[in-house]
């Protein structure tokens, strides 16, 4: 009897042990995809970045630039440059998350045997450069070389070091040079569906990258320590239009067109869709902004202020 019990116990232990092999399978998440293609990450990342920037523009930049003024007379109003430290986090908190998607687009297009694609690599570099430039323009020194490496496979870096703004700008210039080269030589296609901006037109992406390059060069052209180098890079682009094609007509502009749908759940609908009517009524248009539009006889006044913004529409 005792023997049988011992035998049974041993058998059971063995059964339970072999369970643990099966447990790997049970703990594989069926709701997530372990492997995706670059195009599956690309469009949502792009749409999100734009939504983040538009929302920030509405809530913060417009106030900062005296386009709109929040009409309360209390403390802590952006248009009076009374800015609380906690209000600065929105671009940081959201754009870094999207950089993860852009970096994954690059790494998948770079290393995956199935999804190797040089065009996605080039476009990813251009968009990363754009996002990093917004971040460094906003915050100055930021994590760049060590950012977005939180994943264990990437080194589990949860506290990336801050790089100097100057070094970041120089690194972005180098990246945009690389992107221009990659896109020049790339034979890979970007599916039209996954690209809501240029419908997969790589030449246009290349032109956008170089135009961005020029804009970022202009930013540093007034800094005496780097001005000479920056100006010569700029001239190099202007003087070599074949090597550095740039945007030459309105049809080549980088525009993400919202679908115009009123359904907020529709991916290509504007982020302002989920805002309430009163969110647009509460800040008033600034005298600085509307006055100048009027003085300049700008036709934009009809777009910016068609109806009286403070009218009570009960």
């Amino acid at each position: 009897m005792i023997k049988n019990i011992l035998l049974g116990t041993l058998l059971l232990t063995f059964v339970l042990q072999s369970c643990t092999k099966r447990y790997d399978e049970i703990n594989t998440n069926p709701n997530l995809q372990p492997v995706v293609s670059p195009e599956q990450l690309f469009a949502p990342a792009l749409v999100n970045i734009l939504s983040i920037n538009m929302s920030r523009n509405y809530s913060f930049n417009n106030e900062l630039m005296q386009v709109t003024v929040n009409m309360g007379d209390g403390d802590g109003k952006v248009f009076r440059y009374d800015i609380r430290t906690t209000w600065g986090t929105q671009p940081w908190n959201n754009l870094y998350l999207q950089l993860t998607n852009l970096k994954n687009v690059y790494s998948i297009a770079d290393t995956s045997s199935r999804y190797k694609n040089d065009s996605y690599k080039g476009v990813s570099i251009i968009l990363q450069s754009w996002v990093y430039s917004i971040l460094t323009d906003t915050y100055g020194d930021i994590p760049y070389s060590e950012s977005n490496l939180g994943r264990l496979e990437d080194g589990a870096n949860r506290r990336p070091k801050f790089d100097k703004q100057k070094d970041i700008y120089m690194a972005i210039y180098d990246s945009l040079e690389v992107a221009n080269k990659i896109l020049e030589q790339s034979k890979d296609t970007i599916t039209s569906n996954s690209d809501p901006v240029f419908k997969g037109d790589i030449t246009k992406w290349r032109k956008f990258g170089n135009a961005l390059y020029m804009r970022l060069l202009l930013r540093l052209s007034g800094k005496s320590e780097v001005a000479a180098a920056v100006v010569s890079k700029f001239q190099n682009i202007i003087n070599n239009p074949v090597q550095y094609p740039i945007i030459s007509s309105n049809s080549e502009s980088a525009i993400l067109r919202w679908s115009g749908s009123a359904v907020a759940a529709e991916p290509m609908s504007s982020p302002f869709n989920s805002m309430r009517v009163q969110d647009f009524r509460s800040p008033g248009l600034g005298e600085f902004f509307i006055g100048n539009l009027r003085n300049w006889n700008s036709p934009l006044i009809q777009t910016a202020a068609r109806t009286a913004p403070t009218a009570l529409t009960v």
Partner: protein
Amino acid sequence: MYWYIFWQPNADIDWLKNYWVNGQEGRKIFYPYSTFPENPYAIAYEFLNEYERNNLTGNVQVSYDFTKDLSLMVRQSGDYTMDDRAQKRPWDAGSKMIRGSYRTQDITSQEYTSDFLLGYKKQLNSNWDLKGTLGGSITKNRYSREDLRADGLLSPGAYTLDSAETDVQSYPYRSMFEYSSLYAIVNAGYKDYLYLELTGRRDWTSTLANPYRSNSVGFTYPSLNISYILSEAVKLPSSIDYAKLRASFSNVGSGGTVPYRTSYGYGPLPMYDSYANGDYYSAPLVLVKPDLRPLRTVTYEVGAEIQMLKRRLGLDIAAYMGNTKDQILQSIIDRSSGYSGEIINAGKVRNIGLEIALNGTPVKVKAKNGFKWDVNVTFSSNRNRIMEIPDSSVVLGTGAVGSGQIVARVGGSMGDMYGRGFVRSPDGQVVFDPVTGNAKITEGVVFIGNTIPKGKLSIQNAFSFRNFRVSALFDGQWGAVGHSLMHYKMVEQGKLKVTVPGRYNGIIGNGVLEVLDAKGNVTGYRKNDAVATDIDEYYRSMMGVDNAEGSSFSTDFIKFREARIDYTVPARHLKRLGIDRVTLGLYGRNLFIWSPWPMFDPEFGTLSGTDITQGFEMAQFPSTRTLGANLVITF
């Protein structure tokens, strides 16, 4: 509740009854003043949630005695639940649902457990009793949810998935986990007064498994329990009826019941289903932990139980100290890492506590059905201290306002709340702004208090006489704080009495002003004499959205939790009717609250996803007082 906060207090609620805009029934909802508070009648009659639940629970158990000493029990139990839910939202149901929506969820969840117990007992000799038990169990849990959403309906009131303006979006979710364990228990009894229990257990759990790691998902833990019945072992004074001492050591491990925290994957974006015929994904926000370890708790406990004075007085007292290590938590990390959170095994937390239960019968009249007074008192207290942590501080949760957050720091306690608060002078007085007269608020966060109560006490008194029984239960807690969203919102709108002072002539806040030297350095403080005339801003600075400290309050309370009166009809009247017993009762629950907490009930729990967040009140409805009567008839 949000609606009540924003609604004009002196407006007639009947204005809202006809909630459709005339001539646009089904299309446009009438929102007087603004759309800020949604029309509550529209919510009650048009925003409908449907719900159907079917539940099947079963249990089969077989026992077999091989011999007098050896027995086997095998048991299989199962729980199967099906939930069908649907939500209907009309056109104009807020800015995110301009054209309404219809959503359905079909949820199936199942849990099956098989276990066995093999028991062997033996009386060794007249002094020693021995019992051995070997057990094992496997639990399997499955969950699946089909979530279909038609956001945007072609015509008002067309609540079918076919009426979707764009494609129906599907948000499926499936999960499963399993755990199994094998354990052995040895019980030994010496004479009738010394008992010993020794257990050893090994668990395996799928929630820790990961194909990329080699170390096992199994973990082992032991426990030891000794109890000594003093009243059996030695002769005690006759006033003591029963006395028992006990001590235990236990080590418990757990892998948790949340699966999928060990491997990285991309989340689907169903809202893109309608866009360009593809499947779209994004990187996860929370970093998984491939080398996740099980939680471990080592607890030492000593206790005593004593009954005396012919069992009229009883005392049960227990003291414990527990060290919990590797708690599985989600912590917030800086997003320059590319992620917003990560799964961690969090350091080491020590809990020390005391629990006392006292029951007594101060008065008992010998006669049959004579007067009797019973008292039950329970007391519990716990101190919690963070001993080690993987980082200097770990942010475990954030509140909606004033940077309120729950932060774990070494030396602190779980549940410590931090947030922006008053700038204070070294002697603790509030510093005001000399120009506006408003309170100055810190830029960074300060410690506000702990959200977990230090102690709880409850007292129940019961009196019985003849056929009547009257009982009353009071309880209370102390030592914790909470942040009130409702309070700060109402303060900002000037709807609370606390905002009345100074409304017409301004107010001078109780505190100090900084004395500055020519360079602008603070050299001292003097009594505040700056009159705040913008009363809206003054109260905002004292208790508004940016001041988490100002809108945090003690959650201490004493509650008159329950009272009841029962009358049992004398049996002699019932015999003829064939009825055994009739009891008529009146009861009241949640009768009174005495608390410094300003907004209704200090016992609130805020649901955030599936977790209850402690410490942040988010405009929940006040708890209700219940009065009732019941009649119990036993045949």
